[in-house]
């Protein structure tokens, strides 16, 4: 019980809870910002009402979501100082800089232009208003870049030296911190996963309305946009994930050995499909494996040896002194699999959906549908899925709309827990990072407060999302289609109500 409530354990739980919760909103924010910006651009170019309605519909869901992303992000920045003050002292010289860059370059961008976008519908010329949402989208991506560069430094520290006298790490090459291969690979993997997340969300909600045969023109458009995004980003998730895994084999062999429950160095190494391990004795009791595949994942050939957990642990003991350098192996093993599994189901569903709704010239005459009809899912050149199967596809899309979110959460749990017992890999153990002056009671208090607050906000947020999803795209008013800034005339009526007000 005492160990379970040690400030380090509590601080780790708090970091885990608040970060995973924060990251439920981040990927949706990043992708929906860009998707909404794309829809609004389509409206500005074509003047088709369905694009404006889609912009307003997805824009509303985006705003409900970004509000939570922003507020839960504030906590993240201050948590380092509150719960991990020795970490902050040791790495602030290196780690603080990307955070300051994020605030000054990305946060200001995002938060200023989001205000302009929300309140600027009838205050700004159409194209400048459109530029505002693009600025928000760019801001979110920049923000992700800086934070991932900071995280990558914890995974693979570069561009620094240890100043023994000051007892801390000091930056020697900031450019290297920003551009090292871990940062670039993590960025592409995280961003593409974010787009997969937003796309699955869009496809799921579009499917919900199509299932009920409502708001068809808007939802058809959203469905196709979502499916294309899903397939493109899904492919890139796989490619970038493979690249990141290869880097990890090189930089954090222990994490990848744990992800595979590969106890002893083997060459060719098999890929594990299912394993039940005995952590104390260091071997698997049950293992179902595909020979050679792990070697391929690590080295691009089917024979090279891959280091195992036991050998890596010995090597690390030699390098860093006695100790147990193994992360929690069942967590690493299963989180890695759940990340891939949930992500792949979503990607697969996207591929099927895109194939089934492919260009109409592939369809027989009788399957061609007008703009306002529910798209019928076609399987072959002259056949179609029966209505029942079509319905099942829509249902599956609704049910799996959160799968990439689950995948991301497991991905982060894997990345962060797989690095243990290090907070900065090979440099600073997690046990030397906590705040010595913060009491157990204080951490328990804050953890209770955050958990209760986050739970309450989750209920409110989900209820609001459901309400707005069910309501569907708004009907357009005369003012939406012809705001004063569009017909050129200056605001002639000083008492006209604001287009948007809180």
């Amino acid at each position: 019980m005492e160990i379970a409530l040690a400030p380090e354990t509590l601080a780790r739980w708090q970091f885990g809870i608040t970060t995973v919760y924060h990251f439920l909103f981040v990927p949706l924010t990043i992708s929906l910002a860009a998707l909404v910006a794309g829809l609004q651009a389509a409206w500005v170019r074509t003047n088709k009402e369905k694009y404006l309605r889609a912009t307003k519909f997805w824009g509303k869901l985006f705003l409900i979501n970004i509000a939570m992303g922003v507020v839960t992000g504030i906590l993240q920045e201050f948590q380092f100082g509150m719960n991990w003050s020795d970490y902050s002292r040791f790495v602030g010289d290196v780690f603080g800089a990307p955070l300051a860059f994020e605030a000054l370059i990305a946060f200001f961008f995002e938060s200023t232009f989001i205000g302009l976008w929300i309140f600027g519908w009838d205050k700004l010329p159409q194209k400048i208003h459109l530029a505002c949402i693009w600025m928000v989208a760019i801001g979110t991506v920049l923000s992700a870049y800086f934070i991932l560069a900071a995280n990558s430094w914890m995974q693979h520290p570069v561009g620094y030296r240890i100043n023994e006298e000051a007892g801390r790490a000091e930056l020697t090459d900031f450019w290297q911190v920003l551009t090292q291969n871990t940062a670039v690979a993590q960025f592409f993997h995280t961003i593409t996963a974010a787009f997969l997340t937003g796309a699955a969300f869009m496809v799921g909600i579009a499917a919900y309305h199509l299932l009920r045969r409502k708001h068809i023109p808007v939802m058809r458009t959203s469905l196709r946009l979502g499916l294309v995004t899903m397939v493109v980003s899904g492919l890139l998730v796989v490619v970038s994930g493979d690249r990141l895994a290869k880097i990890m084999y090189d930089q954090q062999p222990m994490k990848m050995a744990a992800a595979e429950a590969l106890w002893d160095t083997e060459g060719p190494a098999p890929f594990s499909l299912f394993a039940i391990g005995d952590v104390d004795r260091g071997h698997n009791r049950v293992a179902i494996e595909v020979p050679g595949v792990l070697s391929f994942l690590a080295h691009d050939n089917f024979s090279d040896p891959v280091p195992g957990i036991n050998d890596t642990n010995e090597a690390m003991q030699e390098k860093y002194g006695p100790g147990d350098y193994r992360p929690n192996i069942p967590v690493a093993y299963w989180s890695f699999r759940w990340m891939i599994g949930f992500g792949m189901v979503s990607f697969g569903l996207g591929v099927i959906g895109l194939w089934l709704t492919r260009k109409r010239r592939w369809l027989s005459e009788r399957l061609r549908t007008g703009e306002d009809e529910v798209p019928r899912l076609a399987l072959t050149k002259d056949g179609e899925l029966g209505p029942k199967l079509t319905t099942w596809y829509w249902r599956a899309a609704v049910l799996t709309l959160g799968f990439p979110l689950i995948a991301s959460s497991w991905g982060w749990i894997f990345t962060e827990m797989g690095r243990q017992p290090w907070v900065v890999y090979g440099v600073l153990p997690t046990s030397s990072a906590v705040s010595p002056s913060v009491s157990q009671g204080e951490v328990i208090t804050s953890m209770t407060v955050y958990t209760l607050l986050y739970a309450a906000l989750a209920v409110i947020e989900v209820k609001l999302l459901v309400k707005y999803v069910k309501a569907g795209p708004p009907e357009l008013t005369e003012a939406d289609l012809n705001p004063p800034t569009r017909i050129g005339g200056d605001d002639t009526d000083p008492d006209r109500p604001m287009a948007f007000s809180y």
Partner: protein
Amino acid sequence: MELHNIWFVLIAVLWTGYFFLEGFDFGVGVLTKVLARDRSERRVLINTIGPVWDGNEVWLLTAGGATFAAFPDWYATLFSGFYLPLLIILVCLIVRGVAFEYRAKRPEEHWQRNWEHAIFWTSLLPAFLWGVIFANIVYGVRIGPDKEYAGSFFDLLNTHAILGGLVTLTLFTFHGAVFTALKTVGDIRIRARRLATTLGLVTAALTLVFLSWTQSHSGDAKSFAAMTVAVLALVAALGANMAGREGWSFAFSGVTIAATVAMLFLALFPDVMPSSLDPEWSLTVTNTSSSPYTLKIMTWLAAIATPVVLLYQGWTYWVFRKRIGTQHIAEPVHH
């Protein structure tokens, strides 16, 4: 000037930006209960800050991030030492952000009422607690030889600190009332101006006592000059407000905030957190700062990014420069 001194000034500038900007939106948040008489007046107040509060809040994130990067030990001691007040502030900022965004998402009156209560309390508490925190920073707290805070939560609630909290609370509310008078039309504008006069007098009295106390404890000639500017600007803000010159009044209440922050930072320098146990253990600009290389990169960042940020944030205020009144608030849409 050495880089760590430049960064001490820049951190002061970031806090000034934060208190100037979020100061008035905290103030408006408090006024939703004090000044507004009915639902549509509350909506007018909230809409005066609607497009800008989020951008204002980023000044805090930047101040935090910059302190982390430029003075890691200051950041570490401050945030771990002042754990509970910061916890309350963070919870308030979380609820407050959600409150602004979610309040209008449902038309029911009780839903909106609840978020309005939330906006009031989550504006009031941080406005008070920031004063408590800064009063403690300047006055000195129990810092040990290991740079760690050695006091308790209740050590932070001393008379000087509570007075400091009341100063920021009243000053921000005054600043918010002046802003409201500047941004609204009709009856609410007149009442905001009247309330600003009363608030301004209370603020002036509290500020004078608090700043004199701080000055006598740790001030020098420069901080005395800043204190004088703060008090004179506050008097000028009051005068301009009574004369109906709302723009001038807001400018002067802004100067009051800037000069107050300047006074506190001047009283602090070259310490960043003096130790009340032993001056030897005080955190200073030299013993907490980052390496020259990091500070150099940060200086480049600040030199390039800050003017751009000021430019587009300034533009936001220009876009939404129009005064608003109850007639600009549409009836809530029923879904």
